[in-house]
């Protein structure tokens, strides 16, 4: 009798089980999950802050080294390949995936929060704390997050498009682990990536839904509350599931382009309607301060004063970017085929960071101006409810209704784009790296993400889940350090050994040996 064997992908089944268990735990016993995650989270941020800072700087230096060394000429694909997407399409997708909804959420709230609640060695609500707030907002959202993403995405793109391996994080370790990447070690790395992605994205979606709810309340007086948030999640889920079924080339690209267009219109609107020259001064001044203090800030652990502040902001952010890196890395790798390493690094490091700086200068600047010169109490709003801060600032300036509509639209499109790309990436990671994962898997992960966000918003376990993502970032930081080592070994091999092998193979080795580089 013929027996049918069903092979279950262990990465899919194990990660689904872990995610499901933690979501159920968060729904049924949020207090327990909260207590455990808070403790682990606290220990990690308290004890390993220095490691995150050192690793963050190492990632940045590594990117600069690759970009400006001979490795920069290597193409992420075959030598004759051309980039799949135009610069505008590529930057749009980079920006949407890398920063996305978080930027809209924190663009106003973070500078205000640092302004009224700086480290203890600075006086709160002072000119010094305002400059500090802007500088650190630039720092947290500047080149470091992109360096983290680049290490991940560059490795994935190199090993997938240049070396022909499946686009899985475990593939990046072939030079170090060999065939072990197909066994438990490789699978553990991939499961960890799925774990960090689901929790990171679910948390972001939950927070995004809250902010959209806040915006709708401001605009149309729709009462906030859990019912409204649930409706938002359901509507957005339907939209992004529809988009995810159309694939990377259509849905996500169109959404990302729309996103950047709306963001640029909102930026321009706010610059013109807000304190224009103050914003321009602030941008110039903060950019100078950021560049001058980049290295000291990269290594500031503040052991004498401000230790807790650094841990709860900088270290948290670094862990957060690392936990997002599998998702962003896979997505960015997928859209970067055909670019050279130098083009990829310079583009991904400079352009999104510059747009982020402009964003913070415009919205953070408008908020600080309203708080300092206009006497509006927007900082208090930001401290009480970060989600409402953006709309509170928009209310201060002319055409607030129009700008608020644009902001809600931007939030919704960002929300859909993030969820859409995360669904695609998760399905890819659990399909042995297939670039065309099955619709069932895409649908499954889409539903799981939204359900996780909804259930944990209901139970109050969303923050606990965010902490779990941060916890996952610690082992992932180690994984990423080895990833740099592996990528460098592979690139060095290509430029030294393979170059020599190729020359020798042409003259000496029989044709049936088929030697030489690809």
């Amino acid at each position, binding site marked *: 009798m013929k027996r049918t064997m069903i092979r279950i992908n262990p990465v899919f089944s194990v990660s689904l089980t872990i995610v499901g268990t933690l979501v159920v735990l968060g729904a049924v016993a949020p207090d327990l999950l909260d207590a455990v995650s808070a403790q682990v989270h606290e220990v990690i941020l308290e004890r390993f802050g220095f490691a995150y800072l050192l690793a963050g700087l190492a990632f940045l230096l590594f990117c600069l080294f690759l970009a400006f060394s001979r490795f920069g000429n290597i193409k992420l694909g075959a030598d004759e390949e051309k980039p799949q997407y135009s610069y505008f399409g590529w930057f749009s997708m980079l920006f949407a995936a890398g920063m996305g909804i978080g930027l809209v959420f924190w663009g106003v709230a973070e500078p205000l929060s640092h302004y009224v609640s700086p480290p203890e060695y600075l006086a709160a609500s002072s000119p010094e704390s305002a400059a500090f707030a802007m500088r650190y907002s630039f720092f947290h959202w500047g080149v470091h997050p992109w360096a983290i993403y680049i290490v991940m995405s560059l490795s994935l793109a190199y*090993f997938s498009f240049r*070396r*022909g*391996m499946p686009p899985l994080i475990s593939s990046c370790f*072939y*030079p*170090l682990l*060999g*065939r072990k990447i197909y066994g438990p070690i490789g699978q553990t790395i991939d499961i960890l990536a799925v774990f960090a992605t689901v929790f990171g994205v679910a948390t972001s979606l939950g927070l995004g839904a809250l902010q959209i709810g806040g915006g709708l309340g401001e605009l149309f007086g729709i009462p906030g509350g859990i019912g409204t948030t649930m409706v938002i999640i359901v509507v957005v889920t339907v939209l992004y599931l529809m988009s995810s079924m159309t694939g990377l080339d259509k849905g996500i690209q169109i959404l990302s382009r729309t996103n950047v267009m709306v963001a640029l219109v909102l930026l321009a609107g706010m610059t013109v309607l807000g304190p224009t020259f103050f914003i321009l001064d602030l941008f110039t001044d903060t950019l100078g301060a950021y560049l001058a203090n980049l290295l000291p800030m990269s290594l500031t652990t503040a052991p004498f004063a401000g230790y807790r502040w650094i841990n709860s902001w900088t270290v948290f952010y670094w862990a957060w970017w690392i936990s997002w890196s599998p998702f962003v890395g896979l997505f960015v790798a997928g859209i970067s085929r055909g670019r050279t390493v130098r083009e990829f690094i310079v583009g991904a490091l400079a352009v999104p960071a510059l747009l982020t700086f402009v964003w913070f200068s415009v919205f953070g600047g408008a908020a600080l101006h309203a708080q300092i010169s206009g006497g509006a109490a927007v900082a208090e709003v930001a401290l009480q409810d970060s989600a409402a801060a953006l709309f509170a600032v928009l209310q201060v300036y002319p055409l607030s209704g129009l700008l608020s509509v644009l902001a809600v639209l931007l939030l919704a499109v960002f929300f859909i784009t993030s969820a859409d790309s995360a669904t695609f990436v998760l399905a890819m990671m659990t399909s042995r790296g297939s670039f065309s994962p099955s619709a069932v898997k895409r649908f499954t992960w889409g539903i799981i993400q939204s359900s996780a966000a909804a259930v944990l918003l209901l139970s109050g376990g969303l923050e606990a889940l965010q902490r779990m993502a941060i916890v996952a970032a610690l082992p992932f930081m180690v994984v990423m350090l080895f990833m740099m080592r592996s990528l460098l*070994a*592979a690139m060095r*091999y*290509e430029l030294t*050994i*393979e170059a020599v*092998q190729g020359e*020798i*193979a042409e003259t*000496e*080795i*029989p044709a049936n*040996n*088929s*030697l*030489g*580089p*690809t």
Partner: protein
Amino acid sequence: MLNTALLPLSGRETARRLRTLVADLTQLGTRRVLLLHVASGARTAPGRRRRLEEAQELFTDAGIAATTELRSGSPPFQIATAARESADYVAFCWRRKSWLQRTVVGSTAGDTIRLSDTPVYVHKAALTRSRWLPFPAAEAAHLHQSSEDGSDPYVVVYATDFGPADADIMPYLRRLSRPHTQLVLLHVARRAPDPAAEQRREAYAEHNLKRLAGECGASEVTYRAVTGSPKRHLAHEASRLGAHLLVLGKRDKQSALETILGSTAETLVHQTRASLFIVPPSRLVVSTPADQTEAGSR
């Protein structure tokens, strides 16, 4: 080619060690030895002069012409300079140092390998004398066939990276051979970035090892390719193969990390229990017909 050896002596070498070295150098066909003692200060202790003279007697008795020389300054630098001036190679009578000793006092042999542009032979007495196989004896034993008289073969392992050093080292390999020598060509290299490239790399290694085996012309040649870091695996593989002598070339270009941490050859001298023969880059080998005859007769 290996006619004149420079033998640095610290004065702490025992007579027994020197005797095994004398036998070894005789086997290599060395006819002249320059015994050099480098004093760190301006004065040389009288005891050191006496030890040099004793060593000179030992070599002369064995039929090797020996002269002595005293210098002062940095030992590795003086050894490298003296070798460049008047010797075909440097021979070290190895004395093991712990990691702590090496860190605090330094290693003359290691530094000489770094500085020297003549070949360096590091004689490790224990293995050469007893011919024991240090690591899994059973594993090493099945790799090598005993000679007809039942004695173990003299195992020479040549670590090759298929670079230009191969051409320089090949004549030395012939000279370093002894009766019933088993030559093992060993290639240790890092893994390629992907499975397909790895297959090509393995095929490339196999092809080159076969070619080199053919070029060696020795009767007992085997080869082995290993994946991994040469620095980490060479010593282990040499032990596993029961090597008595490990031969390798020294690259002239080093990475930044190697400049700080030391090259593979410098590291290996402390890790392996086999004697070492290290050939510097672009060493012009003048192989005389007499050399070839001698090598063939051994």
